[in-house]
């Protein structure tokens, strides 16, 4: 499923809304999450899951293929953890 498939599914539920507006709504949902992550805020969508950003320290690492030493700068990485209800849904409970 892609974003446009998702938009089509939502359009079926809201036939009186234009596709363009459905697209805007879906984009607001996604962008709200992205903006919060950028601000290092946690996002909690009960039942679905939560998103947050972890900070990885700078470290001396090795390129696993060449064995070459590389210095990796500190960076921030987005994470997601599925909520209890969503875990149950995908496990068919």
């Amino acid at each position, binding site marked *: 499923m892609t974003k446009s*498939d*998702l938009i089509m599914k939502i359009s079926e539920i809201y036939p009186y809304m234009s596709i363009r507006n459905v697209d805007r709504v879906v984009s607001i*949902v996604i962008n709200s999450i992205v903006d919060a992550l950028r601000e290092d*805020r946690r996002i909690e*969508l009960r*039942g679905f899951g939560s998103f947050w950003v972890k900070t990885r320290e700078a470290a001396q690492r090795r390129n696993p293929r060449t064995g070459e030493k590389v210095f990796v700068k500190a960076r921030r990485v987005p994470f997601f953890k599925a909520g209890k209800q969503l875990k149950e849904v*995908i496990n*068919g409970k």
Partner: protein
Amino acid sequence: MDSKKTLTRADIANAIVSEFKVSKFNATEIIEDVLEEIAAALKEGESVKISGFGTFSVRQKKERMGRNPKTMQEAVISSRKSLTFRASPILKKIVNSKKK
């Protein structure tokens, strides 16, 4: 963890209300529909790829032995499906773009 406020459905609903002439109730309902459609696709084992954001995919985990860390008792962990999210390169870049 930090003092910054956690974003919830209510905040997203407010963002929708400020752009459309809809009630907060209706905005909340459409957010729910978006999340439910994503869940429905994942339930079918489909990946959900939102460009510029990331991909949700379902992985099948095999049955394995585990141990209750509190009681140290060994137990079988049944096979199950787990959900993973891979952030898109764009999202990774965005979270690193702010000076914090």
